[in-house]
C-alpha cells in the first residue's frame, strides 16, 4: 500500500472510532438524528462526483436513485422482512441496475442533454411509485422500526453509525476509482471525449461503470431512510433537494479530488442543520443559494482548489 493509501485508511479508522465514541458519550439523540442527514449527503455528494466530477456528466437525477434505494428497502421490509444490511445491499443493487440502464439509454447524450434525461428518469420513477399500491402509492407508507436491539444505545445511534460506515465506504470507493486507470480515463472523457476514445479509452464502458457505481451508492444512502423516517411518501423520497444538494456540495468542495464532495457535504450539510434549527428552515434555502453563487464565481475549483492554490503559493514563497 502507498503512504497516501495508509494515511487514508488510518484516517477512516479514526473517523469510525470517533463516531463510536460519540455514540457512547453524547446523550442527546438530536446529534445523531442531524448527523445522519449530514452524512447521507456525504455519501450522495461523493457518489454524484464519481460521474459528475470525474467524468463531467452532470446528473440532475440524484433523487431518482435515492428514491429507488428507499423504496427498494421498503419492498425488502414488506416482502421479505429483511434486516437493514440486506435492505442496503438490495437498494444498492437496484439503484446500481437503474444507473446502468439509465447510462445505457442516456450516456450517448452529451452535456445538457444528458442532464435533462436524468431529470426525466426521476420523474418517471416517482410516477411509477405513486401508482404502485404495494408500497403505499401517493399516500405513502408507515414503516415500523424494529424493536431497539440495545446495540450502540439506540436505534438512531445505530443508523448514524451505519451512515458513517457508508460514508467511509463511499469515500474509499471514490478514492480507489480516482487513483486507478479508471479515474484517469474518466478525466480524459471530461476533458475531451473524442480524444479519449482516440487514445484507446472505452468511453462508453467507463461512463457506464461510473454511472452504475454512482447510482448504487446513492441507492445505499437512500435505503436507511425507510427506517429513519418511519413514514415515507414519494414526494419526499424523490425530493428535488437531493438532486440539487448532491450537485451543489461537490461544486463547493471541489470536484477534482475525493475529499472535495466530503468537505462540501460536511460544511453545507452542517450549516443547513444549524440554520434550520436556529433560524428557520426557509432561510436555509437562501444560504444554499448564496453559497453556491459565491463559490461558482469566486472559487470554481471549490475548497480543495483554494487549498491547493494556497499550498502552491506557500511552497513557491518558501523556496529561494
Amino acid at each position, binding site marked *: 500500500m502507498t503512504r497516501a493509501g495508509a494515511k487514508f485508511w488510518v484516517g477512516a479508522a479514526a473517523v469510525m472510532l470517533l463516531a463510536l465514541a460519540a455514540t457512547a458519550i453524547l446523550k442527546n439523540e438530536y446529534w445523531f438524528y442531524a448527523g445522519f442527514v449530514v452524512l447521507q449527503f456525504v455519501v450522495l455528494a461523493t457518489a454524484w462526483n464519481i460521474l459528475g466530477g470525474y467524468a463531467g456528466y452532470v446528473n440532475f437525477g440524484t433523487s431518482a436513485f435515492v428514491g429507488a434505494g428507499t423504496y427498494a428497502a421498503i419492498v425488502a421490509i414488506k416482502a421479505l422482512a429483511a434486516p437493514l444490511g440486506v435492505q442496503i445491499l438490495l437498494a444498492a443493487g437496484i439503484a446500481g441496475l437503474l444507473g446502468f440502464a439509465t447510462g445505457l439509454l442516456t450516456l450517448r447524450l452529451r452535456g445538457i442533454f444528458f442532464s435533462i434525461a436524468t431529470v426525466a428518469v426521476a420523474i418517471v420513477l416517482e410516477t411509477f411509485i405513486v401508482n404502485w399500491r404495494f408500497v403505499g402509492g401517493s399516500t405513502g407508507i408507515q414503516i415500523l422500526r424494529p424493536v431497539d436491539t440495545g446495540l450502540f444505545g439506540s436505534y438512531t445511534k445505530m443508523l448514524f453509525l451505519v451512515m458513517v460506515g457508508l460514508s467511509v465506504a463511499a469515500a474509499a470507493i471514490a478514492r480507489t476509482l480516482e487513483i486507478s486507470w479508471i479515474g484517469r*480515463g474518466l478525466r*480524459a472523457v471530461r476533458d475531451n471525449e473524442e480524444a479519449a476514445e482516440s487514445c*484507446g479509452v472505452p468511453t462508453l464502458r467507463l461512463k457506464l461503470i461510473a454511472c452504475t457505481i454512482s447510482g448504487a451508492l446513492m441507492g445505499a444512502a437512500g435505503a436507511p431512510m425507510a427506517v429513519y423516517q418511519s413514514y415515507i411518501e414519494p414526494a419526499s423520497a424523490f425530493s428535488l433537494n437531493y438532486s440539487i444538494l448532491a450537485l451543489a456540495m461537490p461544486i463547493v468542495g471541489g470536484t477534482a479530488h475525493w475529499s472535495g464532495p466530503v468537505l462540501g457535504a460536511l460544511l453545507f450539510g452542517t450549516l443547513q442543520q444549524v440554520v434550520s434549527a436556529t433560524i428557520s428552515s426557509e432561510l436555509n434555502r437562501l444560504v444554499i443559494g448564496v453559497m453556491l453563487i459565491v463559490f461558482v464565481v469566486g472559487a470554481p475549483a471549490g475548497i480543495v482548489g483554494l487549498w491547493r492554490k494556497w499550498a502552491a503559493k506557500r511552497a513557491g514563497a518558501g523556496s529561494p
Partner: protein
Amino acid sequence: MNGAPLLSVEGLVKRFAGFVALSEIRLAVAPGERLGLIGPNGSGKTTLINCVSGLLRPEQGAILYDGRAITRMPAFERTRLGIARSFQIPRPFRSMSVLENLMVPLDYVAHRGQLRDTGAQDEAMALLAQMGLAEKAQAFAGSLTQVDLRKLELARALAARPKLLISDEAMAGLSGAEIEEVLALLWRLNETGITVIMIEHIMSAVMRFSQRVICLDAGKIIAEGTPTQMVENPEVRRAYLGA
C-alpha cells in the same frame, strides 16, 4: 503496390443530412507507406480520417485494416489495433499535465491491464524527450503554446504505439524549423515501420514526405500519384494548387 494493404477503404459514403461529404471513396495504403492527403478546405479529408479512426460511421462502404473489417468497430478498439491519430485542432486533456496526457494511451493501449505504471512513465518521458517536450512534462496541457500543443498531439498519438499514424495537419502554424523537426520525426517513425498518412496544407512538406499523394475535392478522389505527377496534374492545379 505489392502484398496486402494495411488499410483499404472501399466505396465509402458519408453524408451529413443532405450534404454528401464523401462519395464512393476507394483507396489502399500499403504497410510502411507514406501517403499524403491533400485537397481544399471542406473537401472531406478530415471526414475520411474520422471514418477511418472511428469517430464517424459511414453510411456505405467498408474499411479494412490488416485484413479485417473495422467499419463498425468503436474508435478505442481501432486505436488498440494500431490506428492512432492527431487532431487538426489540438485536443489536449487540459486538466492533466503533459506527462499524464501521454499516460492515457499508455494506460489504455500499451500497458493495459498492468497495475504499476513505472514502465509507462519511463516510456512517456522518452516520448516527450523525443518531441522536445521533456522540460514541460509537469506543466498543465492547458497552458502550452500552439507549437507545443501540436507536438503533444503527435506524442500522444505515438504513445498508443501505432502501426498506422494519421497526422491531421500536425504542422499548421509551425515555423520553418519546427516543420523540419516534425518532418524528421515522422521520417524516423516511418523508418521503424510505421505507416503514415499525412494530411497537410504545407505543400513543401507533404510533397517531400509522401511517396504517393491523393487529392480530394468535394468528397471525391480527383487525382492520385507521385508528388511530381500531382504538381503537374491539371485537375489538382485547378482544384487546389491554383494555376
